[in-house]
Every structure is written in structure tokens, then in C-alpha cells.
């Protein structure tokens, strides 16, 4: 009897075996291709994802560290700061303080996914499902990425930038280039167009434009800074009265690139390169939670489907769940490991909850999400991935169940009090407030100080005035603000002031005491000899 039972079991196993994509923990290219096909089948036919073609690249630990250090891009212009982060990452990794990400994915067309050779086959499978389909779909469909990035051109543009920086180093010396890039990096996060959409142009056009632009730019600047009396006196008078620029400029590097009186044409191009790269990453830090959440949701769904179809075995699923739960681990606030919300966990929890609301809503859900209950979860989830960023997605879709599950509470920090006050917890009274405040913490202004150029005194002292619009009474860190300001001064060449305003109250004034002698450029007004070559 026992014998027969065993045999029966064995034969069942046989049947199942034939369906498996792989067994064992080591990977090979054959397994990877089969895995990719199986994932694609589910991603496209079941979930209806819309992805760029994928390019998986097998890399070593060293190469992963490398990719980390150049902000995750496949290539990047050279700068010491990338060397610094490489050294730091390598140090942290080698003493075991930091684990490496399993994957790194680049928003390009084709979508480049890095797989580390150390990964087990299941990890590779997870990465494929997570990055090659989850992130990939998000990149291609999310409105921010669609508007702000050009995945077709980014690799080519970076190639152009790398070459350009290298040529400048050869021509003008590494020190001069480094100094300019240092200054540009200091204000890169204030050099993003938040509302105006950039033109999409290809790298080849970019290179062609670069040549004509440098000449054109320089001529424009010279015109603005004309010292001889101009025939258009009326306009001059207008400028004097109204102040210039007429509208505040949120993109500092753009302004400096176009109007700085002292930069030479190659330095203006550096400003442009740095701000274009910064702009490229703008959608990424606005969609961290939703991007990771969607990718995690995708890998979770794909692996469960693979298991249901008998394509992966129990051992694989156990390993998968171990990986999944360690990536999505959310330490609580009092844990020494707590470092804010884990974007993977938060995003996944929200989307999983929405899926539940769509398929099996209870009374509470019908009250909270009347328009979602009993809809097709595939369409709803994809809609969230396409049309929201973190702030708006949390504000719309963070449901009471997630708040309860995670035990979220609101701590109010009034600056003059000695104690924090717990103002809301996970109950009827608290849900909405927690949702609102959590969403607010993902606003760009909460993370990155909002600083704009309000005035440039082009007729007299050439002073430049920056305005920091305070977010909820927050002020700047004085030490770094002074340092950054001196960098701005290097790019502008004349005195730079920064005001912090909070609802029309002046909080702080920053001003660089001395004008450093080492301007990064020579004034085109003083010296016309050098920059036309």
C-alpha cells in the first residue's frame, strides 16, 4: 500500500517536474531566458503590462558598486564625487555593513536591467519580474516619466556629456572643470523645471545644437551686460524700475547658464549637463514609493501565478517569500533599524490593499473607495501606476486597513515644546489626518528646499538675489547654505544674497562675506580673447 502511494506521488511529481522552468539554485543563461519568457507571458497576457524591450546585463559585484556610484547610470561623466561614493560603497560593502541591491534598472529604451552574478536563480527571477516588468512598465507609463524623461536618448546624451567633460578637461585643465562641476552639483536640486516641460531632442541634435548654442549664448550674455549706453533707453528704464528677471526663476543653473556675466561657453555647457541630468532624476524621487510598490506588486503577482501554473516548485517559493519579506521589511519606529518608511513595503501594501478593495470589498472599503469597489483590479492598479506620484497616490489610495496594519500614528513636533504630541492614531478620527500628513511628507518641497532667483541687479551692482520660500517655517541649515552660496557666487561672479521668507516674514539672510578671488571664469566683459576659440 505504502509502495503504491509513494509511486503515485512520484509520478505526480514527474508530471509537475516537466512543467518547471528550473530547479536548483544556480542560474544559467538558458534558465534566464526561460524565466524571462515565463514572466513576460504573465506580465503581458495576464496583467496587460506595456513595457520597453528588456536588456538584461550580467555584472559582477565590483560592477554593481560601480553602477551605484555613478547614480545608477550605465555611463556618466567623470567627477571625483563619484569616486568618493565608490570608495564609500566599497568600504561599506567589504566590511559587511551594506548589502547590495539585487537589481538596478535604468529608465532607457531598451530598458537595461543589471543582474549580479552572485544571485541565485530565484533571486534572478525575482529581479526579472520586479525590474524588467514592474519598473519597466512604470517607466514607460507613468505620466511623470513620460513628460520629463526621454528614455530613447538618455544613454546617448550621457555619452555626449562624458565626452564633452573629458574634452574640456584636456583643453581647460581638470582643476577648472572640477571646480565648475562642484559648483553646479551644489545647486543641482534647485535646477529643475517643476512645471515647464523640457523639449525632447535626440542626442545628435543635442551635439549639433551645442556648437551653435555656445556662440549664441555668449552673444546674448554680452548684449545683456552691455556697458555702453544703449539706444533702447526706454527698456533700460523699465528694467530698472521693475527689476529683472520679471518672473522668479526656479531653475538656478538654467538662469546661470543663460545669464551669468562671467562664465565661458564651456562652463555654460557644464551647467546645462548637470541640470539635464538632475532633471532626468526628478520623476524618480517623486515616485519612489509607487515605483517600488508597483514593481513589488508585479513580482509578487508573477511568482504566485508561476506557482499556480506549476512552473516553479515549493523550494523556489520558499526562497521567494524569504527574499520578498526581507525586501519588504518595515521596522517599527522604535527599532534601531528604523529609517523612515520602506518605500517597497508602503507601496506594496497600498497596491495590495487596493487589489483587495477591487475584488472583495467590505463595508468600510465601499465607504472609502466607492468608485473602486468591484472594478477590475488590473485596470485600477495600472491606472494608479500611470497617473499618480507618491504624494497624490498616498492621498488617494492609502486605506484605513493599511494604516491599521502598520499601526501608523501622527506625532506632532512643535519646535518650542519639550515633548512630542501624539495627535492621531489608527482609528476613525485619525485615518484621514494620517493619510494627509503622510502624503504631505512626500511633497517635493518637504524634501528639497524651494529656492528661486528673484532679482539680478544688472544695471548697477550686479548683485544676485535668491529667495527661499520656507516650507512650514523650516529654515536652512546655515553651514551648508553658506557653502552652497559661495558656489553660486563662483558661477555668478558677483555678490549673491539669499533670503528665507515664511509667509512674508523674513526669517534669515545669507550673504557671502567675501567674494572669492577664484571665480571659475573670466568675465567676457573684461576679456574677449579666450572664449571664442
Amino acid at each position, binding site marked *: 500500500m505504502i509502495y503504491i502511494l509513494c509511486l503515485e506521488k512520484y509520478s505526480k511529481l514527474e508530471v509537475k517536474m516537466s512543467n518547471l522552468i528550473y530547479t536548483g539554485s544556480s542560474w544559467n543563461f538558458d534558465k534566464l531566458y526561460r524565466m524571462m519568457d515565463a514572466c513576460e507571458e504573465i506580465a503581458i497576457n495576464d496583467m496587460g503590462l506595456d513595457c520597453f524591450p528588456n536588456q538584461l546585463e550580467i555584472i559582477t559585484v565590483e560592477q554593481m558598486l560601480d553602477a551605484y556610484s555613478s547614480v545608477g547610470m550605465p555611463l556618466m561623466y567623470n567627477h571625483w564625487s563619484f569616486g568618493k561614493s565608490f570608495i564609500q560603497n566599497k568600504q561599506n560593502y567589504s566590511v559587511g555593513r551594506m548589502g547590495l541591491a539585487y537589481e538596478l534598472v535604468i529608465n532607457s529604451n531598451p530598458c537595461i536591467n543589471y543582474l549580479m552574478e552572485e544571485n541565485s536563480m530565484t533571486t534572478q527571477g525575482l529581479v526579472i519580474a520586479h525590474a524588467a516588468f514592474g519598473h519597466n512598465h512604470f517607466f514607460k507609463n507613468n505620466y511623470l516619466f513620460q513628460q520629463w524623461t526621454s528614455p530613447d536618448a538618455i544613454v546617448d546624451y550621457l555619452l555626449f556629456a562624458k565626452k564633452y567633460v573629458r574634452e574640456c578637461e584636456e583643453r581647460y585643465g581638470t582643476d577648472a572643470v572640477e571646480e565648475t562641476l562642484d559648483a553646479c552639483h551644489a545647486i543641482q536640486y534647485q535646477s529643475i523645471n517643476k512645471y515647464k516641460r523640457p523639449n525632447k531632442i535626440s542626442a545628435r541634435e543635442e551635439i549639433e545644437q551645442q556648437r551653435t548654442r555656445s556662440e549664441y549664448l555668449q552673444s546674448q550674455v554680452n548684449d545683456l551686460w552691455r556697458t555702453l549706453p544703449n539706444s533702447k533707453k526706454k527698456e533700460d528704464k523699465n528694467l530698472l524700475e521693475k527689476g529683472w528677471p520679471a518672473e522668479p526663476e526656479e531653475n538656478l543653473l538654467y538662469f546661470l547658464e543663460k545669464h551669468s556675466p562671467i562664465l565661458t561657453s564651456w562652463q555654460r555647457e557644464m551647467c546645462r549637463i548637470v541640470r539635464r541630468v538632475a532633471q532626468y532624476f526628478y520623476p524618480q524621487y517623486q515616485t519612489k514609493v509607487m515605483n517600488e510598490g508597483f514593481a513589488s506588486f508585479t513580482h509578487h503577482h508573477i511568482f504566485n501565478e508561476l506557482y499556480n501554473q506549476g512552473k516553479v516548485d515549493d523550494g523556489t517559493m520558499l526562497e521567494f517569500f524569504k527574499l520578498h519579506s526581507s525586501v519588504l521589511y518595515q521596522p517599527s519606529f522604535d527599532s534601531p533599524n528604523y529609517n523612515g518608511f520602506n518605500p517597497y513595503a508602503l507601496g506594496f501594501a497600498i497596491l495590495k490593499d487596493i487589489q483587495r478593495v477591487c475584488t472583495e470589498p467590505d463595508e468600510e472599503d465601499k465607504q472609502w473607495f466607492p468608485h473602486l469597489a468591484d472594478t477590475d483590479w488590473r485596470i485600477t492598479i495600472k491606472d494608479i501606476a500611470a497617473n499618480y506620484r507618491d504624494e497624490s497616490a498616498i492621498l488617494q489610495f492609502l486605506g484605513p486597513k493599511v494604516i491599521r496594519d502598520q499601526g501608523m500614528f501622527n506625532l506632532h513636533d512643535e519646535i518650542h515644546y519639550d515633548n512630542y504630541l501624539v495627535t492621531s492614531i489608527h482609528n476613525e478620527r485619525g485615518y484621514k489626518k494620517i493619510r494627509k500628513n503622510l502624503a504631505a511628507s512626500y511633497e517635493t518641497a518637504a524634501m528639497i*528646499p524651494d529656492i528661486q532667483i528673484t532679482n539680478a541687479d544688472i544695471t548697477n551692482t550686479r548683485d544676485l538675489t535668491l529667495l527661499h520660500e520656507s516650507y512650514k517655517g523650516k529654515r536652512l541649515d546655515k553651514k551648508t547654505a553658506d557653502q552652497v552660496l559661495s558656489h553660486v557666487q563662483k558661477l555668478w561672479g558677483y555678490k549673491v544674497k539669499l533670503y528665507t521668507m515664511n509667509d512674508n516674514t523674513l526669517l534669515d539672510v545669507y550673504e557671502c562675506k567675501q567674494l572669492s578671488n577664484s571665480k571659475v571664469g573670466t568675465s567676457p566683459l573684461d576679456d574677449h580673447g579666450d572664449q571664442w576659440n
Partner: protein
Amino acid sequence: MANNIIDRRKNGDMRNPGTKSSGNRQKFIKRTKKEIRKSIHDSLGDRSIKGSGDSQDVVINRKGIDEPQFTHNPKTGSRDIILPGNKDFVEGDQLEKPKGGPGQGSGGDKASNEGTGEDEFGFALSNDEFVNILFEDLELPHMISKENKAVQRYEISRSGYTTVGTPAQMNLEKSMVNSLGRKIALKTPKLKKIKELEEELDNLKKFFYKTTQEQKDGTEEWARYQEIEEEIRKLRIRANAVSFVDPVDLRYNNFTKKPAPISQAVVFFIMDVSASMTEQHKDLAKRFFMLLNLFVSRKYKKVECVFIRHHIQAIESSEDEFFNSRDNGGTIVSSAFKLSKEILADRYSPNEWNIYFAQASDGDNWDQDNEELLNVLSEDILPVTQYFSYIQVGTKRHGYYNSGNLLQEYVKLEANHKNIITKHIEDTYDIYPVFREIFKIRGKNE
């Protein structure tokens, strides 16, 4: 959808990130070189420096490598924080703010677990990088190139290619390039001609289309037809006769002997190992010599070292023995220089060699020997020496040396001999500064 898997692990193309960061790393090291040098300098007393092997950890100040950004001061502005993991709080509960600011958890104090403070940045240099920075601006002073007319020395070096040589010296690449060129040059005109003729032949074939042999015979075209066929046959033979490799193709690596200017040097390491040298003294002396040995072997290709230990007797020893063996006994310093003198006469003619001495001792000498020592130094050693450095190890007390008075004796020599330098090392922290001072790069007139 076109999916693709690429193995990026091996190839070294531009997209390969594996080769990417080394440039950035070098930039970083260049930028922080001053700081690194200072850090190495400060910590040298605690390090063990080896010629190879482990990387060296350095800690530098963050000052020059800050990347400032506008950031919010966390101590300003009221805020609402959402946190996960509520266990038993209800609305209205109050929590005490952690001291040192409103930062959560670990608080504001960032004395991190890296073993470095907030203002410091620690990382590892490879041993090569470390040693290069260590010896960057040091040299063996007064090195000159000495040429001895009597003893001609030759260096064999590569100098281009020749048409004659032994098969072992044949340069295959060059030879095959020549062969290829010759084949192209000789074959192409013939093949071109064949092609032309074949075209003409085709035209004639068309001309003769459906004509009988009788009609062809005797015509001018038919004669031409046969002539062309014959010519093509001959050209084919000649084209095929172009040989694959011809003796004229062959090139050989050429080596020439050149009279070599001799700027070779020998460094004498002389260490006192007598009983008066305490463990600490020996440690200091050995550390100094290890540094010197590393320096010489890293920076100079053609420098030989002679290791001499002495108590009442001097022994020439191998490098290994010099650093590792233990001896005891009284002290007669002159014995070491008498031995050196013999070695010089025997192996290192001053005409051919730059001669350097480095001596370390606690300063103790048998009193009766001092005169003889000064004699042998000023008569036989110093006149032929480029540079003589004397290190006295041991603590100084009340301005006097705890140990012997050799230093005072040597100072007398300094008056008449410009090429002697004397230094004192009290503990391990002195070694590197003293070493730098002895071997720093000088101006020409010094």
C-alpha cells in the same frame, strides 16, 4: 518584444561599468592627496609598512570633499511625522524628545560605528597607492651618472626591425603585414586585368551566340577570342604564383647594444646590534631600515643594498638575517666601516657606483675606537660617498643623549664633510619625519 541577455562580466568596452570608477577614484585620491599625506604622516608610527599585501586604511578630514546642498535644518519649523508600529499610544500622549535635537532614534550625535567621527572619512588605499604617496617627493640625493671609460658597459635594447635575423627573433606580425601588402600589390593588377578580359570575352560570346564553328573560324573576333582565353590562362598562372610568404616579407626584431651610462648605486645599511641596543632601540632602527629598504626597492631599479650588522665584529648578512637575527656583545663601530671599505674595494668601485651609507646606532662605542672610527670615515668612506646618514636612536634626557656620544663625534665630521647628515630618533613617531628630512628632494645647488 525583443528581450536580450548580455554578459557584461568580461568585456572591457566603454559601457562596461567595471572599468568606470577607477578614473573617478584616482580623481578623488588626487583631490585629497594633501589630506591623505597628512593622515599617513600622522599615523605612521602605528602602522606596519610592508612592500606588498594588505591595503592600508587612511582616515582623512571631510572638509575638502564636502558636497554641500541646500538642506533643511531639522531643528526648525513645526512638523507632523507619521510613524509606523504604534503599540499603545492614544491621542494626547506625550513623548519626550530625545536629547541633542529632534532627530529620531539615534539622535543628533553621529559618532558613528565606522570608528571615524562625523568630520572624518575613512577608506582603504591599496598598498601601491600608499607607498607611492609615501615616497612621492623623496630621492637618494646627489645621484650622478658615472661612466667608466675603462669598463664599457652595454645595454641591450629593442631598436626597430631588420631584414636579417634568426628565426627565433622573427616578428610574425610585421612579416605577415608585409606579406599581405605584397600579395595585394602583386595580385590585384592581374586580377583586374582578368576581369576586364572576362568582360570582353562575355561580349564576344554574345557575338558568337548560335554560330557554328565554321562560321567562327577565320574571323578576326574568333582570333581575338582565343587570344583572350590564352591570356587569361597565363594571368591566372601568374596570379597564383604569388607566394604566400616570400623571404622579402620577413622582418626580425632588432636588438642593439648601446654603451650604457651608469647611474647605479649601492646603499650600505649599517646597524648596531650590540648589547647596549635595547629592544626598543633595535625596533626603532629596524623600522627605519625597513622604510629605507622599501623606499630604495620601490623607487630605484638599479640600486643594490649591502647589509652589515656589527657589535665588536662586523658581519655582512642577507636582508633576511639583517632584519631578523639576534646578536649581542660589545661595540666597535669602526669594524663595520673597515668591512665596508673591503666590500667597496672588492665590488663597488666609486668610479662606477654612487655610494650611500645609512647607519643606525644607540651612539655607544668603545671609547678607544672613536678616533679610529673618525679616521676611517674621513679618510676612506666619506670622500667616496654621495651621502652618509647617521641615525641615533634612543631617548634624549636633559638635552643629552641617554646613550652614547657617537652623535657628537659625527657632528665634528659635518664641519669638513658636506655629505653627512645626522639625526636623532626618539620614538616611532619620529621615524617618518626624519626619513623625509634625510631624503627630501633638494635643489641642485644644495
